């Protein structure tokens, strides 16, 4: 039972292969959901550098590497991994219920870079 109304059901878990990401546009917001071992993490899809699609990046541990110029962002915090590239992406709380991935798009966790 989902009591909290801010959780938006996005898609089913089988749609996102392990260690890969997929983009979805919900209410005009483009997000990328990633599948790590036992969890799903969501960040904004657009790379702050030049808009690269982060959903297509290689997952390195809990970070994703932008496919265009290789910036790395931590999927948990949204922070750029290298201090030399100060920037960040929004992260969104994500959980799974009955095989459905739910994302809370209202509480974009802003990180200060």
């Amino acid at each position, binding site marked *: 039972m989902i009591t909290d109304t801010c959780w938006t059901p996005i898609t089913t878990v089988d749609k996102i292969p392990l260690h890969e990401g997929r983009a979805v546009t919900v209410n005009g917001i483009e997000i990328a959901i990633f599948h790590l071992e036992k969890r799903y993490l969501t960040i904004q899809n657009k790379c702050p550098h030049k808009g690269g699609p982060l959903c297509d990046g*290689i997952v390195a541990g809990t970070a994703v590497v932008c496919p265009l110029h290789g910036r790395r962002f931590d999927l948990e915090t949204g922070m750029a991994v290298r201090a030399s590239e100060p920037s960040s992406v929004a992260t969104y709380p994500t959980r799974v219920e009955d095989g459905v991935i739910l994302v809370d798009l209202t509480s974009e966790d802003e990180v200060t870079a």
Partner: protein
Amino acid sequence: MKQQLVVVGNGMAGVSCVEQILKQAHNFEITIFGDETHVNYNRILLSLVLAGEKSADEIVLNDIGWYQSNHIRTRLGVKIAKIDRFEKVVFNEDGGATEYDKLILATGSSAFIPPIPGVEKKNVHVFRTLDDTRELLEKAKPGLKTVVIGGGLLGLEAARGLQVRGCEVTVVHLMETLMERQLDATGGEYLKRKIENLGIRVLLPQQTAALFGNGHIDGLRLASGEELEADLVVIAAGIRPNVELGRQAGLDVRRGIVVNDFMQTSDPDIFAVGECTEHRGQTFGLVAPLFEQGRVLASAITGNPGPGFAGAAPATKLKIMGVDIFSAGAIDESEAGVEAVRYEDPSLGVYKKILLKDNKLHGVILVGDIEDEHVYQDWLRSGTDLTLLRRQVLFPPRDADPGLAVAALPDSETICGCNGVRKGDIVQAIHKHGIVTLQQLKERTRASTSCGTCTGLCEKLLRAVTPDFQEETKTTLCSCVPFSFEQLRDIIRGQQIKSVEEVLNVYGNRKGCEVCKPALSYLLDMLWCGEHEEDRSARFINDRVHANIQKDGTFSVIPRMRGGVTTPDELRRIADVADKYKVPMVKVTGSQRIDLLGIKKADLPSVWADLGMPSGQAYTKGVRMVKTCVGTEFCRFGVQDSTRAGIELERRLENLFTPHKFKMGVVGCPRNCAEATVKDLGLVGQDGSWQVVVGGAAGKSVRKADLLITVETTEQALEACDLFFQYYRENAIYLERTYDFAERLGIEKIRKETVYAAEEEKRALLDRLARSKAMAKDAWTEGQNPVNPTQFVQIQPMEARVS
């Protein structure tokens, strides 16, 4: 007349001592006896041999040529059984006698076998020598139930070695704490967790009561009553100095053969060095102090005695990849006047404890982060006053440029702890001998030849001191899997590893990154000829969707157009696709084919289907294309049918992956209209023959290709192409284009190992190529059979759920 010097024991301490003697002015004729049948090898690295990271050949320290060129009589496989001190003769087991003027005992130690009932059974082993290691290697098989008795450095390294061979390993340790001589309880707990994370079971504190089984081992019973199944048992319960000879000769012997500060035993003509010795009540188990003993002994025996041996508190480092442990000095903080400073981060698995006494470093334990290890070594050795550094003792200041930090070290700073090589020695050697590579440095100074942990420091020092420093080609792939590409190739092949994840879990940091994952994907594909588990998430996006990503996130599509030859029908379909999908740009590429740029990921499958052409692989590290000229068909100068040969060449090699992109060209005469001599592989037509050329480039580098061979027929030319192609696939480092590959290996070597190789080697190369080719397929067929449901499909958000 020369004096006879006899050395009993051909191990690390004995031979190192002889090396020191050779450096002094001496008047000895030297004979070395060793009961192992091998030349002196690096015992420390046996763990890496067990784990498949090094071969037996790679750990040899002194090859047979060294003994010969130094005129050392070497008797291998011969055990000395008796010393007659009054006649000054040693006898070997067969009774053969050798006279000596001076005698050095360097008999080392043996594995201690605790008196447990059943230890004599088959498949119960110790781990001390190369022969032990070979026996273990023969038995270690995936799934074999293995128990290691002893959770010290040796036991853990043995456990890890066997585990990477696929054995199911349990470590049984008598004490509450693993490596209790080097770690405190907390450090031991961290270590235990790390070892367990690797997939090794750890039982402690547990005493083994008995080993059971009928002749061979079936299992062991613990004192607690629990029974463990075991097909193989390794005992690593400590070492005992080999003192029998000394005792028999009537020398002063306690736990070890007692020596004074000049390594002399109670008989002034008999010296001892290494693990068999006892000095001021202390025995030894690590090489650093033993090499120091060797230096002292060498000076004393050659009549130039300098300062004596003062004992040592050596530092210990565990050699298990990903389990970083460093310990030096004292570990017990209950001692009066000792203060402990600690840091712990359980989720990072980092634990540090620093013991201070009189504001000086007294001991250090580092788990999980040992980067500052040499700083602590320096503080310990030099007794630096740390009053002003108190706030930083757990995180010593690091220089921004590590090269500068090394350059700033005092000359007396020990760089290689094992071999006692100081910074000053290295700098002097570099200048004196014009050393520019790490290998040369190793050969000259012996630095970094033992446990290898100072390699990084030596390299930094070289880099800082010599302007001409040459990087070795064997650099590691990336910090996630700290092995060279060549080593990884051997590891994956040797350990039969079939997935990227497995390589990262066993040999890496379990994460991987955009550098190592694609490289490992390539290695697996090449080594297993495509018969492995392909992990798409380890590939760059281009290889997941078989198209080249563009700056706006769309993709470009270049269909295969073999030899640059097309048909009106194909062109019509291309035009229709361009219209239907409103392709923003259609372009003729520099490789004689047509590019459709700006296609959405979701449209890729239907674009491919509508084109009805195979993938041109323009997005991957793989076979790109064969550019051809019109050749004999139409050209008035053409002497070979370059178009037909080019199309055939492309068919033979298409759909295969390569270390870097691979481009080819075939031309009908030396006018070279399709630029075959600046391609990775080219065929240049001549009257009655083909020249096969390799390693050409006209991109970032421009390089004229080298001639591999000249052959008569097209079939011969194509076979030469196959040979070079597969050889490059197997031997190049990932992301090494053929122009660098050809420079690195030299064309002579490439010729010898391809077109001029023995018939069976050629056959083997061609067979492996054929196997890979049989598994290779046109990637665009995945448009109709995707590997997962959302490979191309854009996910649509669900309708808000009806509650």
